[in-house]
């Protein structure tokens, strides 16, 4: 229970004027979160939608993005269709060339869940605080065409969300269950997010306090993701993350290693995937 409780105490101390709830409590952009939504019952008010974190993905509600003419005038909006096309090109590039994406697609296929690019991936305009998400209701990856604008970002989004898909494919995963949500977020952060650099950006590590800081990075990343999509108290979220942490942190399937930046880890993981029974994509 150590690290997160400490961070929480510090956060309470510094930001005690703000109530610790809602999505924007965290100043840093949340990179990837899951969306969960109810398709059958339309949300009656904005508070309801916020609880399921899907006001971050306006196009999930079936409306196309509405541009503001002032922003079009300054060239900040109005190119949505071109952006979507570019985003889809990046997705296809990653599927053809990205080692981790290829690994994940192979792992999914051999688990009996093949990815159909059109069925399972969608490029959309989202809230600027996210770069991508996974929608468990439609079982789709959302890539944010306005935020994930280059190949490496799209690669990161696809890998992260495909880890959620892998967990859903292999396990009886209930995204309403906070422990399940925490576990899959821990795994995604553990395998593909928390390099030393991103841990430093996140404030969880520094060259002088690097010892085992990786765990702290995974914990706070998972916590942020859980809090972004569930309207639960920080205390409950911390408790859930800490409860499932040891098991989910040790579970490295299907990548098998914690990827180090600027190394050949990605390629190595891809090459050894067939030894673990995963398809070659």
């Amino acid at each position: 229970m150590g690290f997160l409780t400490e961070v929480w105490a510090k956060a309470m101390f510094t930001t005690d004027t703000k109530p610790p709830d809602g999505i924007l409590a965290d100043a840093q952009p949340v990179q990837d979160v899951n969306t969960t939504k109810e398709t059958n019952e339309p949300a009656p008010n904005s508070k309801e939608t916020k609880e399921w974190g899907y006001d971050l993905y306006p196009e999930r509600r079936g409306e196309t993005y509405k541009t503001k003419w002032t922003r079009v005038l300054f060239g900040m909006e109005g190119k949505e269709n071109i952006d979507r096309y570019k985003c889809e090109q990046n997705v296809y590039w990653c599927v053809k060339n990205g080692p981790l994406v290829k690994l994940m697609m192979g792992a999914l296929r051999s688990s009996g869940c093949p990815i159909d690019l059109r069925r399972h991936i969608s490029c959309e305009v989202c809230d600027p605080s996210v770069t991508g998400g996974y929608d468990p209701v439609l079982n789709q990856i959302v890539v944010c065409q306005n935020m994930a604008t280059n190949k490496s970002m799209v690669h990161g989004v696809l890998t992260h969300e495909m880890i959620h898909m892998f967990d859903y494919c292999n396990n009886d995963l209930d995204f309403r269950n906070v422990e399940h949500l925490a576990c899959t977020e821990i795994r995604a952060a553990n395998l593909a997010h928390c390099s030393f650099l991103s841990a430093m950006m996140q404030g969880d590590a520094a060259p002088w306090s690097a010892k085992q800081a990786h765990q702290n990075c995974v914990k706070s990343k998972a916590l942020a993701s859980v809090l972004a999509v569930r309207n639960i108290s920080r205390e409950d979220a911390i408790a859930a993350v800490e409860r499932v942490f040891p098991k989910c942190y040790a579970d490295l399937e299907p990548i098998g290693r914690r990827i180090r930046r600027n190394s050949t880890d990605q390629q190595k993981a891809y090459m050894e995937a067939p030894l673990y029974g995963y398809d070659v994509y």
Partner: protein
Amino acid sequence: MPPQSENVETKQSNSNEKLTDTWAIRSCHLYKDEYDDCTSFKARFNQYFIFGKSIDCSSWLTDFRNCERYEQSQGKDVAAGDAIIKSEEQRRNARLQAHYANDTWQKRKQPPEDWAKPLPEWLEKRNENTYLELKQKELMGLATPQEEDRSFCAIM
């Protein structure tokens, strides 16, 4: 090359054994790569960052040496080959054990049935004739692959 006598000896002692699971043996340079990477300064720092200490890389080196012996004897040095297969098995067990020990959730017996359920109509309509649809058709062999050299550059 190991000394000739040793080679002959191993050949004789294991002449009637045959290795199964030779699929688990990787190319030798991969073991060397793993060992070199594992002991590099950057990786040592990364290990400190993740585990708080340096991890044991010696199994990669042992595998590399065995692999060379195995390759140079052209698959006749069964003891060396067997050692690699055992070590690879250990590696797999360690990784999969952690996976199966994760009992936060129940393992599925079958893949979820709603994996590729139909999308809502508005989404299907939006997806019609898009780039990814075309590419998926190409991957499934329903459309002929096309050249990709178009760009949005307006100067040319």
